[in-house]
């Protein structure tokens, strides 16, 4: 086969062999034979040894699928190729399998083992796609296999695979809903995942499988709020919608105080129809009712839950998203959750979406229409953005009209009416009709303009277009009902129209109007009835009903003139084809014509027919639509769609807010911190490094190599929550220090995410040493860490202990330096119960011991090695930490003294930030020394390596290659440590250290000088 590219392939395919595909439908019987022949040809190609032939065949088959042709009879031939080496063939086979496996369940099972193998592949993409296809094959028999695969993938080290696992959950659920309980466990586990990649997908799974299990969210609430800005767009939408529901169950109505104040104002403007209600007053009725109860009980000022505030604060920047769905999601969140004073911010963003594609406009306008009823003031400044252009599609025009009508009030009504006048001249008649309706609504809502509107509408009665006239009649009818006495001339005018106007609805309206107000037009009414009686048989049903109605009313008020006419009409109606009309005629005859048998009701006939009828209320079709969650499909359709989750009412008393507290120490400060783009920026700088290193090292090797991060995550989980409170408050201040700490944590997070290994492995007996810090290359380019002896083999009677500073952040407590300790038992007997006792620390210093070794395992067998991580807070000093190291038989006094360079941790800075910070640390805080570089220490690379080996600092980008800059901060107090090394051509160099802590600065300069001169 000559062409491999999709381009040529496709063209070739369709012109040669593919041609008949267009012509015939394989399903149609007549051409079955030729059909088989063609497929035989494909089968042959699939059976061949050449990948190119297979590829060609698969492409043609997939093209058939894409066009909706049936290719199911090729299943056996295709499934054979599932293990094909060629990745493109394999992918196309997957596509085929997913499409047809449901129909050919038995054969599909043949492929399962391939996917099971794929699940164990070292390449994360292959693992993920194996899971993806496996879970997409809708074959019930493999449910247990799928369940197992999902569970396994949920704890995979690659976040991408975990994401795929999250996607697989709803697939399995739809295949077998009985698995729900097991799946919820997986969801719970994945909800705890801290990567942005997984967050959106798992919330999606949550929404599809167990949206009612709101309790699963508690512990993850703050994390989700904080991750939100970094989640991909689609995930953001799902998370925001879910959090809206969550917040409605957990927090109090932020507007309840306002509703309390309004209570005094009394129930006014229930329909929003009184002219003088301003925006403040047409207040959410529902909210009011709901809020009344708690406010009566408590009467205490409302204080917003900090978590509620967190959600509002963290979603706000997303209003600037380029994705309309995200903007809408935030807008609905604010509409449903924010205090009234803050909802306004969404208007601008929504108005911006009006510039987008017409489908987006359509959906946004629907939502704006609903919002504008409750919060009119919000959109008033943007009134003109809703002006209509002749080029808008009709459905957009009608919606804009709706919004304009909702926004109309006494101050802007004249502008709006002027605008409406131009619309009436439009060529789009449906739109004109809608405009007339809108004018009618403005007139009913705003008393001042009622007469103006009415006059305008009467003028339209002489319009040449019948549709326009008819619509005007209908609207005028409604308006007249409000004050009929003053407008008998209009009624007369309309009576004349019956001769010309043919639209049934308009005729019916006129007849009703004349009947209702026959006393105002006593001369004309009987004449109209006369004419109508003549044409009765040819009228539409609604008109006939109104004729009967008119006859009855006239009979009651003016029986002298109309008795005969009425009887005539009733007789005609008696034999009408429509049973409704026959029924009505019979009913009315009994009611109005006095006979001896006539019932008790007939004396009330006049009251029945001529009762004073309340004027109709012209309401927006969007009124009260906000009981649906805005932005949802259900809201758009104004009907509950399948799977719609009701937006709960605010609770009367807030549920216990402490359920959202997270015990795991370190995550609290992280999640309560306001997430920001700033943070993200820093992450961006660092992130590629991580992904790089991941790519290099590969997941397989990292699996057993990274003991440090293992044990870290292990101890993190066992950590206590003592510090959460404090860091919580600290985070409020949002100081720069926090920022850095934040970022450091983020980094730590990443490391963990790449190696999320199980705790049980952490004390595995075959630890590799020295610790490879592949994840940390940017920080310590040298890669190898210096080890120090803690206990010599001889002193320790066969137990030798070494330690090094792993330079990993110590997760249980960020203020501690992580010390990796390695025990080697070279004695003949086992060492049991290794632990620390009797630490003698300087004041302020703290120590977090490693978990007792041998707790589970009881022993460190002879000849084995184990390494653990402990944390020590050195209080930014190089004082030694003294303690006893105990085994089951002996105690050894040991001490750990940190080199000054280990008391700090790297932070990432831009060049500008560095300069700025450096400028602030001048004078006493700056120490400068000149040095002649050692022989082997020429060149930028060597300098960087030396400095980063001596101190745990990270490199800061710098424009000049003569200068190297490094930044870090001390572990305990977080004071900045800035180092710059300027080299000169002759081998001389100048080292500058800027640090608030002068002692550290001085010591660090010494250390760096030493390392550079070597």
């Amino acid at each position, binding site marked *: 086969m000559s062409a491999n*590219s999709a381009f040529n392939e496709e063209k070739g395919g369709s012109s040669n062999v593919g041609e008949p595909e267009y012509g015939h439908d394989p399903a149609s019987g007549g051409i079955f034979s030729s059909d088989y022949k063609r497929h035989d040809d494909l089968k042959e190609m699939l059976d061949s040894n050449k*990948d190119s032939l297979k590829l060609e065949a698969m492409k043609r088959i997939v093209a058939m699928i894409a066009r909706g042709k049936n290719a199911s009879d090729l299943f056996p031939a295709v499934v054979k190729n599932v293990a094909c080496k060629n990745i493109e063939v394999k992918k196309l086979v997957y596509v085929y399998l997913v*499409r047809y496996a449901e129909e050919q369940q038995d054969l599909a099972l043949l492929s399962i083992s391939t996917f099971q193998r794929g699940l164990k592949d070292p390449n994360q993409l292959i693992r993920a796609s194996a899971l993806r296809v496996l879970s997409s094959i809708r074959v019930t028999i493999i449910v247990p296999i799928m369940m197992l695969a999902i569970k396994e993938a949920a704890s995979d080290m690659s976040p991408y695979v975990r994401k795929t696992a999250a996607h697989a959950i709803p697939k399995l659920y739809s295949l077998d809903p009985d698995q729900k309980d097991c799946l919820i466990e997986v969801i719970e586990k994945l909800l705890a995942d801290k990567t942005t990649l997984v967050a959106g997908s798992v919330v999606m799974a949550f929404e599809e499988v167990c949206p009612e299990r709101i309790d699963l969210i508690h512990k993850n609430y703050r994390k989700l709020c904080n991750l939100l800005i970094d989640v991909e767009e689609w995930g953001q939408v799902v998370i925001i919608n879910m959090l809206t529901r969550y917040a409605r169950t957990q927090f109090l109505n932020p507007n309840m105080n306002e509703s309390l104040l309004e209570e005094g104002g009394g129930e006014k403007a229930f329909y929003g129809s009184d002219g003088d209600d301003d925006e403040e007053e047409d207040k959410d009725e529902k909210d009011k009712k709901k809020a009344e109860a708690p406010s009566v009980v408590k009467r205490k000022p409302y204080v917003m839950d900090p978590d509620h505030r967190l959600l509002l604060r963290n979603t706000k920047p997303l209003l600037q998203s*380029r994705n309309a769905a995200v903007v809408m999601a935030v807008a609905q969140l604010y509409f449903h959750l924010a205090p009234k004073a803050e909802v306004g911010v969404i208007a601008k963003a929504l108005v911006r979406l009006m510039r987008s594609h017409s489908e987006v406009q*359509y959906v946004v306008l629907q939502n704006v229409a609903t919002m504008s009823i409750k919060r009119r003031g919000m959109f008033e400044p943007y009134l003109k953005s809703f002006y209509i252009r002749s080029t808008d599609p009709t459905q957009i025009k009608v919606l804009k009209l709706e919004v304009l009508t909702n926004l109309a009030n006494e101050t802007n009504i004249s502008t709006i009416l002027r605008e409406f006048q131009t619309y009436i001249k439009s060529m789009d008649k449906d739109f004109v009709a809608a405009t007339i309706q809108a004018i009618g609504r403005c007139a009913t809502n705003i008393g001042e303009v009622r007469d103006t509107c009415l006059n305008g509408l009467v003028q339209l009665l002489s319009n040449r277009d019948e549709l326009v006239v008819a619509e005007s009649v209908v609207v005028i009818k409604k308006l007249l009902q409000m004050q009929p006495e003053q407008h008998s001339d209009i009624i007369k005018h309309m009576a004349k129209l019956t001769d010309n106007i043919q639209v049934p609805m308009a005729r019916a309206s006129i007849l009703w109007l004349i009947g209702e107000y026959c006393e105002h037009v006593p001369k004309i009414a009987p004449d109209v009835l006369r004419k109508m009686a003549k044409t009765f048989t040819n009228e539409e049903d609604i008109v006939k009903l109104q004729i009967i109605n008119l006859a009855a009313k006239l009979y009651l008020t003016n029986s002298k003139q109309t008795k005969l006419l009425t009887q005539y009409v009733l007789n005609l109606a008696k034999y009408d084809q429509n049973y409704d009309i026959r029924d009505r005629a019979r009913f009315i005859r009994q009611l109005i014509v006095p006979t001896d048998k006539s019932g008790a009701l007939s004396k009330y006939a006049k009251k029945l027919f001529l009762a004073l009828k309340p004027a109709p209320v012209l309401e927006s079709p969007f009124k009260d639509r906000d009981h649906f969650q805005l*932005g949802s499909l259900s809201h758009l359709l104004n009907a509950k769609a399948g799977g719609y989750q009701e937006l709960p009412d605010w609770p009367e008393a807030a549920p216990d807010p402490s359920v959202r507290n997270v015990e795991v120490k370190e995550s609290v400060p992280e999640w309560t911190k306001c997430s920001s783009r700033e943070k993200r920026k820093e992450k961006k700088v660092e992130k590629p490094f991580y992904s790089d290193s991941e790519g290099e090292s590969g997941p397989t090797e990292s699996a057993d190599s990274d003991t440090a991060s293992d044990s870290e995550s292990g101890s993190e989980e066992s950590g206590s929550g003592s510090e959460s409170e404090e860091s919580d408050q600290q985070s409020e201040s949002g100081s720069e220090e926090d920022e850095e700490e934040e970022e450091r944590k983020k980094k730590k997070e990443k490391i963990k995410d790449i190696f999320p290994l199980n705790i049980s492995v952490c004390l595995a007996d075959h630890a590799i040493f020295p610790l490879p810090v592949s994840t940390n290359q940017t920080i310590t380019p040298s890669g190898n860490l210096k080890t120090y002896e803690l206990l010599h083999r001889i002193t320790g009677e066969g137990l030798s202990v070494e330690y090094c500073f792993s330079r990993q952040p110590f997760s249980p407590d960020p203020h501690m330096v992580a010390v990796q300790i390695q025990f080697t038992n070279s004695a003949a007997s086992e060492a049991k119960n290794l632990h620390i006792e009797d630490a003698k620390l300087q004041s302020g210093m703290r120590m977090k011991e490693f978990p007792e070794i041998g707790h589970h395992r009881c022993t460190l067998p002879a000849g084995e090695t184990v390494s653990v991580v402990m944390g020590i807070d050195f209080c930014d000093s190089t004082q030694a930490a003294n303690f006893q190291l105990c085994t089951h038989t002996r105690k050894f006094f040991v001490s750990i003294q940190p080199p000054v360079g280990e008391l700090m941790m790297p932070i990432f800075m831009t060049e*500008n930030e560095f300069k700025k910070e450096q400028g602030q640390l001048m004078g006493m805080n700056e120490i400068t020394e000149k040095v002649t570089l050692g022989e082997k220490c020429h060149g930028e690379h060597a300098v960087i390596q030396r400095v980063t080996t001596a101190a745990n600092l990270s490199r800061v980008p710098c424009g000049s290659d003569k200068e190297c800059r490094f930044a870090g901060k001390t572990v305990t107090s977080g004071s900045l440590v800035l180092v710059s090394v300027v080299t000169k051509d002759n081998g001389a160099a100048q080292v500058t250290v800027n640090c608030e802590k002068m002692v550290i600065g001085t010591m660090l300069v010494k250390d760096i000088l030493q390392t550079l001169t070597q």
Partner: protein
Amino acid sequence: MIHSLFLVNPSGDIFLEKHWKSVVSRSVCDYFLEAREKALDPEDVPPVISTPHHYLISIYRDKLFFLSVIQTEVPPLFVIEFLHRVAEMIQDYFGECSETVIKDNVVMVYELLEEMLDNGFPLATESNVLKEMIRPPTILRSVVNTLTGSSNVGDKLPTGQLSTIPWRRAGVKYTNNEAYFDVVEEIDAILDRTGTTVFAEIQGVVEACVKLSGMPDLTLSFMNPRLLDDVSFHPCVRYKRWESERVLSFIPPDGNFTLMTYHVNAQNLVAIPVYVKHSINFFESGSGGRLDLTVGPKQTMGKTVEGVLVTVHMPKTVLSVSLNATQGSYTYDNATKVLVWDIGKLNPQKLPNLRGSLSLQTGAPKPEENPSLNIDLKIQQLAISGLKVNRLDMFGEKYKPFKGVKYITKAGKFQVRM
């Protein structure tokens, strides 16, 4: 979420289908086709249609309908936005989004759709992630593939998928490093019959074409950022920086992208670059009418107005026109009743004029309504709001990039009521 996708051409043929869950019979599209029949214009088809068992959400774009089938509650904008991304992706891969192109590359489109959604939920929609998984077709590559048997499908997980900057792939390399920014402003306006502005606003967009090696970190600042009232950003822009310093700081995607869109503060008066003198009369007898149009420059800031195009939607009864243009040429489409006058460059010394007579259907009443004019125009080297880029800095890489900024003003939805 999204169950299936059907691509429908203007004549109602379904030429591609893709299912992400169980197969939905294409007969479900009948409901849509019915609605399509009813609508006078393809734009009038309701974007959301409810059928007994499914919901259909569709967009109309590039003369094609992208029709998705939904079974359960999902935010409609979510689906609409995604469908537009599909169209943009096709455009991005094959240079245009049309039935022919999709049919020619049906397998690749199908593979892309497979990657974009998993079980109906978006998996990869960033163009550079997709391009690493399925490489776009080029002539060179097709030749190479033929010779070496290599494929268009990547076997590594795209780097973007795992990073927090999914829009940029690692290891980008260019020999010429360049970054170009186009500031394009559009004037949306409605002028009434006397020429008074009923409504006018400026919408702007900064389009970027960035071809830089490595991981450049760019900072773009404006001379007068206070002009900008409402902004929306590509996800790469750091919002916090904008909030505090009013500069755009970002690690750009590779290639073409929209950096930001903005709206100019509504308090500023909008300069209207042209005026139109117009008169249209229909005779009482109903047999014909007269049209007279003149276009002239108004507030152009001393620049030349180019590409002027006037479109008039005539009343339905206008049968033909017989006009005389002093500049440019005009066409009248009797089917759609659209008169288009292509003027070109505006010469302030000699104003272009179009006048002549209109003939109406015999017996038809005199049209009551007056048509409205839509105007297109272009002004090079001018951002009508006065927005100016101050400087562009690059951090994180050592080379010196070539930088450029271009300004252009266009008419957006610019309508004159007659």
